[in-house]
C-alpha cells in the first residue's frame, strides 16, 4: 500500500460526547483528500488527534505503514505532518519570520537567533511555492490570506510532507480562494499530500481526489471525486436530500427603509476607509453587498449600527436621521444586526442561551420592570425561540459557549429576527456553517423580506450573494461602485467589479 497516513478505527471521547467514533481515513501520497461533515461532526477533532493535540481512546495511526504514537505536535512534526489550523496559530505582534521559526530557531555562534539566515530561507521557500510572503512584516499588519500562507510556510519550513488544512477557505475572499487552491495543487505537484476540511462542496469537487465523509462522529465512507457530484456529497454528509437553490418569489420592493448619503468612516488606524458611500435598501428587498474584505464593509455596518462614528454624510432610517446615534438608539429605531463575528459581538458566551436571547431587550417589558429582571418571562421567551428556530441545545440554561457554531448563529438570528426590525443587517451570517444550517438561515432571511422588511446582506461568498440577493451592490474602495441584478450577472463580472474594474455596465441599473 502506498498510503502515507492511515488513521484506523479512531475513537475520541469528550466528557459527555463521542466526537470520533470508529473513524478510518487513509491518505495516499500526492493526493488531496477532502474531509467532509456537518458542524460538530468531528473533523477538527480527528485532525487534532493526527497532529498530536489529542490522544485517541482507541484506534491506530500509521505513517507510511508503520504504527506510530503521536503524543504531541513535535512528534507529528518529526513525522512530517503539518497542520494549518481553522483558527490561525499566529502570534500577532511577531513578524512572519519569528512566527515561522518559533520552536525551530536557527542560532548564531553566540546563541542568539540568526534572524537574517531565517529570513533568507523563508524568502526562498515562499518564492518556490509562489506564496508571496514578506518575511519581515508583522502578523497584525497583514491580510488574512497572507496569514494563512504564513501558516502554510510554517509547515513547509518544518519539512512537512503531509499538510492538513482545517477550513482554510472560510475566511478568504474569492480571489484568495483561487490562489489557495492553486497553491495546493503546486504543493501536491511537489510531492506533498493534503487533507482538506471544508464545507464548500464546490471546492472539494474542484481540487480534491477523494473525499471521506463523517456524520455525527461516525465515518460514512470514502468516495472518489471523479465518481460523484455535489448533490451526492451533500446528502452523504447530512443524511438527506439538500436543495441548493433557495426558493424565492420575485421581490416587491416598496419605500426606502435605509438611505445612506455620502458616508465617510475612519478605520482603526484613523484613515477614511468608507469614502463617500451612497446606498439605499427598500422594504421587501434583500440587498447584497459584494466586495473583497477590507474595502470598508465592516466599517459601513459599524457606522449604521452606531458601533463606529461616521465622520461625514448621513444615514436615514425610515427617513429619520440615525447618523452617530448610540447602538441602543439605532436598535430601538428598528435595526436588527447579525454581526460578522459571533463570538466577539453576537453572544456573551458565558451567559446562558436564555440570557443571550434577551441581550437586546432585557431592559424592556416584559423581561424586566423597574430594573428588576423577570427570569420567568426571559426563559419562557427563550424556550419559544429555540423551538421556533431549531436551536439545538440541552436547555435554555446551557451556556452559549457550549453550543456548536451553527447553533450559536441560529440563536443570534432568532434574537434579531424576533424583534421584527425594519432593517435586518446580516453580516457573513453563514460563515463556517454546514449546508443544512446555511439553508435554514437563507430561508429565514427571505421570509423577512417577504414580510416586507429590508434586508442588507454582507458576504464574501459570491454564491450566497448571487443566490439570496434581489439586488447586488458592489463595494470597492469605500464606495458602492455598481448596482447589479443577480440574474443579469455572474461570478466573473462580479469578481472584476469587486477588483475595481469599471469597464462593464457599472452603475447603470440603480
Amino acid at each position, binding site marked *: 500500500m502506498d498510503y502515507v497516513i492511515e488513521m484506523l478505527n479512531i475513537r475520541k471521547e469528550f466528557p459527555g460526547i463521542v466526537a470520533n467514533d470508529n473513524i478510518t481515513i487513509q491518505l495516499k501520497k500526492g493526493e488531496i483528500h477532502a474531509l467532509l461533515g456537518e458542524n460538530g461532526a468531528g473533523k477538527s477533532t480527528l485532525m487534532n488527534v493526527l497532529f498530536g493535540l489529542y490522544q485517541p481512546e482507541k484506534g491506530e495511526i500509521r505513517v507510511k505503514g508503520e504504527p506510530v504514537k503521536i503524543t504531541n505536535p513535535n512528534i507529528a512534526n518529526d513525522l512530517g505532518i503539518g497542520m494549518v489550523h481553522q483558527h490561525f496559530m499566529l502570534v500577532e505582534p511577531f513578524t512572519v519570520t519569528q512566527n515561522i521559526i518559533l520552536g525551530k530557531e536557527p542560532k548564531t555562534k553566540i546563541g542568539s537567533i540568526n534572524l537574517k539566515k531565517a529570513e533568507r530561507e523563508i524568502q526562498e521557500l515562499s518564492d518556490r511555492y509562489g506564496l508571496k510572503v514578506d518575511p519581515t512584516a508583522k502578523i497584525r499588519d497583514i491580510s488574512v490570506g497572507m496569514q494563512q500562507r504564513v501558516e502554510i510556510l510554517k509547515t513547509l519550513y518544518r519539512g512537512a510532507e503531509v499538510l492538513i488544512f482545517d477550513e482554510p477557505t472560510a475566511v478568504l475572499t474569492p480571489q484568495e480562494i483561487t490562489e489557495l487552491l492553486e497553491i495546493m495543487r503546486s504543493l501536491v505537484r511537489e510531492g506533498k499530500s493534503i487533507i482538506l476540511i471544508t464545507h464548500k462542496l464546490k471546492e472539494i469537487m474542484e481540487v480534491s481526489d477523494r473525499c471521506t465523509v463523517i456524520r455525527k462522529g461516525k465515518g460514512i465512507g470514502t468516495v472518489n471525486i471523479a465518481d460523484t457530484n455535489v448533490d451526492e456529497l451533500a446528502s452523504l454528509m447530512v443524511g438527506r436530500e439538500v436543495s441548493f437553490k433557495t426558493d424565492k418569489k420575485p421581490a416587491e420592493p416598496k419605500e426606502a427603509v435605509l438611505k445612506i448619503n455620502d458616508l465617510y468612516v475612519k478605520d482603526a488606524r484613523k484613515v477614511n476607509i468608507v469614502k463617500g458611500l451612497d446606498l439605499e435598501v427598500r422594504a421587501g428587498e434583500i440587498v447584497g453587498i459584494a466586495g473583497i474584505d477590507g474595502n470598508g464593509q465592516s466599517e459601513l455596518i459599524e457606522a449604521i*449600527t452606531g*458601533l463606529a462614528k461616521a465622520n461625514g454624510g448621513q444615514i436615514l432610517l425610515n427617513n429619520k436621521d440615525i447618523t452617530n446615534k*448610540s*447602538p*441602543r*438608539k439605532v*436598535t*430601538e429605531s428598528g435595526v436588527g*444586526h447579525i*454581526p460578522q463575528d459571533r463570538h*466577539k*459581538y*453576537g*453572544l*456573551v*458566551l*458565558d*451567559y446562558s442561551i436564555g*440570557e443571550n436571547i434577551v*441581550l*437586546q431587550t*432585557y*431592559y424592556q417589558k416584559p423581561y*424586566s420592570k423597574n*430594573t*428588576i*429582571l423577570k427570569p420567568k418571562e426571559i426563559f419562557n421567551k427563550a424556550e419559544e425561540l429555540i423551538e421556533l428556530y431549531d436551536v439545538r441545545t440541552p436547555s435554555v*440554561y446551557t451556556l452559549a459557549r457550549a453550543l456548536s457554531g451553527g447553533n450559536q448563529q441560529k440563536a443570534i438570528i432568532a434574537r434579531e429576527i424576533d424583534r421584527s426590525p425594519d432593517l435586518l443587517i446580516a453580516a457573513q451570517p453563514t460563515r463556517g456553517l454546514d449546508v443544512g444550517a446555511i439553508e435554514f438561515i437563507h430561508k429565514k432571511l427571505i421570509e423577512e423580506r417577504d414580510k416586507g422588511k429590508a434586508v442588507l446582506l454582507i458576504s464574501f461568498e459570491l454564491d450566497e450573494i448571487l443566490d439570496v440577493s434581489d439586488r447586488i451592490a458592489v463595494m470597492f474602495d469605500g464606495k458602492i461602485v455598481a448596482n447589479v441584478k443577480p440574474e443579469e450577472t455572474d461570478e466573473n463580472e462580479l469578481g472584476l467589479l469587486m477588483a475595481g474594474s469599471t469597464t462593464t455596465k457599472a452603475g447603470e441599473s440603480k
Partner: protein
Amino acid sequence: MTSNNKFMTFMIPVFSVFLGLFVGAIIMIISGYNPIEGYAALWRGAFGDAYTIGETIRRTTPLILTGLAIAFAFRTGLFNIGAEGQVIVGWLASVWVGIAIDAPFIIHLPLAILAGAIAGGLWGFVPGLLKAKLGVHEVIVTIMMNYIALHVSNNIIRSVLTDHATKTENIADTASLASDFLSNMTLNSRLHYGILIALFAAVIMWFIIQRTTIGYELKAVGFNKHASKYAGMKVGKNIILSMVIAGGFAGLAGAMEGLGTFGNIHVMSGFTNLGFDGIAVALLGANNPFGVVMAAFLFGTLKEGANEMPTGAGVPTELVDIIIALIIFFVASSYIIRWALLRFKKEGK
C-alpha cells in the same frame, strides 16, 4: 450537570479548608507543638465564651464587606486591589461625619454610614473612570490609590480633624453602631450592629447581580465588552458603576471600623489588611455574596482565634496566616481538586 456543579462549588472550599488545617497541623508537629492543643487554643480564642464569640463576629463584619467589594468588581471582570484604600477613606469619612455633625440618631447614623460608602465609592470611581475612559489598568491604579488614601487620611486626621494628634476624638453617640445590648450579651465585647449591615449588603449584592438589569449589564460587560457594546450597553458607564459600588462596599467596611469597632480613626502606619484579606474572602466565597459571608466568618474565626494560640499553646499567630494562604491556594487550584474529586466519585461508583 448543574447540581453536580453546585456540589463542587460547595465541596471545594470545604475540602480546601480541611486540607489547610491539616497542613497547619503538620507544620505544628514539625515545629514541636501539639496541634490538638494549638487548635483547641484557636477554638477557644474564637468561641471560648460569649466574649470571644462577640469579637469573632465583630471581626467578621468588615471582612464580609471587603469580600463583597472584591467579589462585586470581579463579577464585572475588574480586579479591585483597592479595597484597602477604600476602607481607609470610608473609615475617615464616617468618623468625620460622626464627629462634625450634630443630629439625632435617626439622621446621624445613616448619614455617617452613607458618608463611608460614598467616600469608598469615590475612591473606586477614580480607577473606574481611568479604566473606562483611558483604558488604564485598574490593578495598578487601585494599588496607587491605596497609598494615596493612607497618606491623605493620616494627613487629614492630623491637620484637619485634630490639632496634631494621632487619633481623633470619639464620634457622637448618635452616630455610633455600638450596642449596649449586644455588648452586654457578649461580656462587653465590641460586637456592634454593623453585622446586620454587612449581611444586608450581601443580600443587596445578590439582588443587584442576579435580579436587576444593572447586574445583567455589569456581568455582560465583565464577560464580553464587545457584545455588551453591540447590545447597546454603555461599557464605560458599567465599569465605573461597578467600581463605585465595589468601593461603596469597602467604604462601608471602613465605616464599620469607624462607627462600630473603634469609634474614631487613628493615624495608620500601614494598611489595615482588610482589603487584602477581602481578596481571600471573595475567592473562598466563589465571588458569591453568600459564599462571601461564610468565608468571612471562617477567616474572622481563624484570625480571632489566632490571638489565643501564643498564650494557649505557644504557637506563633503567623501559623494562621500560613493556613489561610494555603486555603487560598487550594481553592484557587480547584481545577485539580475538582479533577481529584471527580476521579474519586467515579472510582467510588
